[in-house]
């Protein structure tokens, strides 16, 4: 395409440095999203991930040689909700049923309207609600893994599930992703913390009072699916501790009978909020329009990066492990298709 812009793109250069060639090869290795032709020993298998309601939200084709996955092609399904478009026309006080996006959207909206910060008691209530949501998410992922493995451990004994040898045998050493690869793929949350990096936005969150509750990011170093599985148990324990501490602290605060300031109009043209969602960083950015509506709403979810990384995570996996690896990732299909 002819460009009228004065673009000094790398692609316009005739001579490429060795470093650029290396980057191109790395990019090609990480994102084999389109394959043209298969070798005579490969077969293509279209599968869908094991996820309740996920069947038409994500399409996955595997290239298999023998029992090994040699490539994968992932596509988001066509259940796009158009949430960002819808929020551009929705009134301030009833934007949409935002579900998992409610809290970061609220935080960004408060910044946009310069709404005074809620009381500590109110902030603690928000924290308790969000940690409960995180707890439930991790339990759902664990339940899916247990169901797939067919573990004989009682389903209500988390400690026995965590130590289950069958689950361990199926997950250990699988879908290993080192720190640099995880960062290259835009992965945050548990994927990054399983590489030993204590990257957790709750440690620097200014809008929720984690700093009052002795929050500590949970990490492991093995970088595989089993490390991530174990991290979910550590996160559940941390969430329960945070909820207990938050409840105690909340009960010490005076009862809050102030009516929240109604959001009338924006004071800033732009605001954003980020939050440590169960699977990583979730960012909501808002641009205000003059007439009091939203000019633009951008919701960037951690499941987007997770889903795009699936082909890389499955490379070299045994075909028997694919469903389990996918289940253990914890991709939120609603987040993906907003």
């Amino acid at each position, binding site marked *: 395409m002819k460009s009228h812009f004065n673009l000094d793109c790398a692609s316009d250069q005739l001579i490429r440095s060795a470093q650029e060639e290396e980057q191109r090869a*790395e*990019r090609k290795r990480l994102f084999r999203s389109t394959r043209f032709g298969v070798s005579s020993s490969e077969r293509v298998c279209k599968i869908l991930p094991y996820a309740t309601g996920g069947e038409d939200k994500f399409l996955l084709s595997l290239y298999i040689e023998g029992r090994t996955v040699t490539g994968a092609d992932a596509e988001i399904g066509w259940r796009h909700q158009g949430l960002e478009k819808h929020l551009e026309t929705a009134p301030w006080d009833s934007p949409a049923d935002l579900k998992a996006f409610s809290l970061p959207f609220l935080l960004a909206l408060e910044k946009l309207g310069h709404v005074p910060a809620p009381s500590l008691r109110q902030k603690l209530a928000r924290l308790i609600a969000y940690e409960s949501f995180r707890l439930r998410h991790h339990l759902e992922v664990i339940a899916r893994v247990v169901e797939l493995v067919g573990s004989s451990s009682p389903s209500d004994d988390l400690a026995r599930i965590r130590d289950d040898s069958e689950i361990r045998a199926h997950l250990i050493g699988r879908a290993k992703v080192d720190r640099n690869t995880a960062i*290259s793929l*835009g992965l945050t949350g548990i994927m990054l913390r399983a590489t030993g990096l204590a990257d957790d936005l709750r440690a620097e969150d200014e809008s929720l009072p984690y700093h009052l509750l002795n929050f500590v990011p949970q990490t492991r170093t093995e970088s595989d699916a089993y490390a991530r599985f174990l991290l979910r148990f550590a996160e559940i324990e941390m969430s329960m501790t945070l909820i207990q501490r938050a409840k105690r602290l909340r009960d010490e605060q005076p009862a809050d009978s102030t009516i929240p300031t109604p959001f009338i109009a924006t004071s800033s043209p732009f605001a954003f909020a980020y939050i440590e969602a169960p699977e990583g960083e979730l960012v909501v950015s808002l641009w205000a329009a003059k007439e009091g509506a939203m000019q633009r709403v951008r919701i960037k979810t951690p499941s*987007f990066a997770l889903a795009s990384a699936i082909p890389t995570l499955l490379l070299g996996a045994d075909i028997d492990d694919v469903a389990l690896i996918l289940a253990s990732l914890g991709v939120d299909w609603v987040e993906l298709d907003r």
Partner: protein
Amino acid sequence: MSLETPVETVLRKRFSRIQIVESLSNEHEEHLVLRQRHLLDALDFLQKDPDTHLNLLVDISAVHHHESAKGLYANPPQTPFFEVFYVLRSTRLKYRLRISVFVSEEEPLMPTVTATFPNANWLEREMWDLFGIFIEGHPDMRRLLLPKDFTGHPLRKDYEESFQS
């Protein structure tokens, strides 16, 4: 922010040929507006330089400005235009940076940044899908969220008008 000096200062001192159009920083985030021709060099520098260490690409998307953007920027282009923004974060220095680039509506074209940030792949595809901003050099320029035979780019402000006509 953990850095002693803002990114703008580092860029001006160490990469002076990069022209910073505007700087809009607050206590939460530094926000720079750059010229499109400097984007790739700037991102590459910011990722590799140990003093900036912006190693994680958090987001890429766009805004279609159809009404005046004077409340947002001191000297925005004449509307309508696109603003393409990149959100970067440093996992070591614990801070984030937003970079914006203005793009003409008549010829919406951007270079791919997948050489520096491989995870830009799907983000740039989404931008093409929803805004119609073509990404030059992208390895896989297909729609991402919408069906392949879908007509139009729904997050454009003129989308409803063109759809009805």
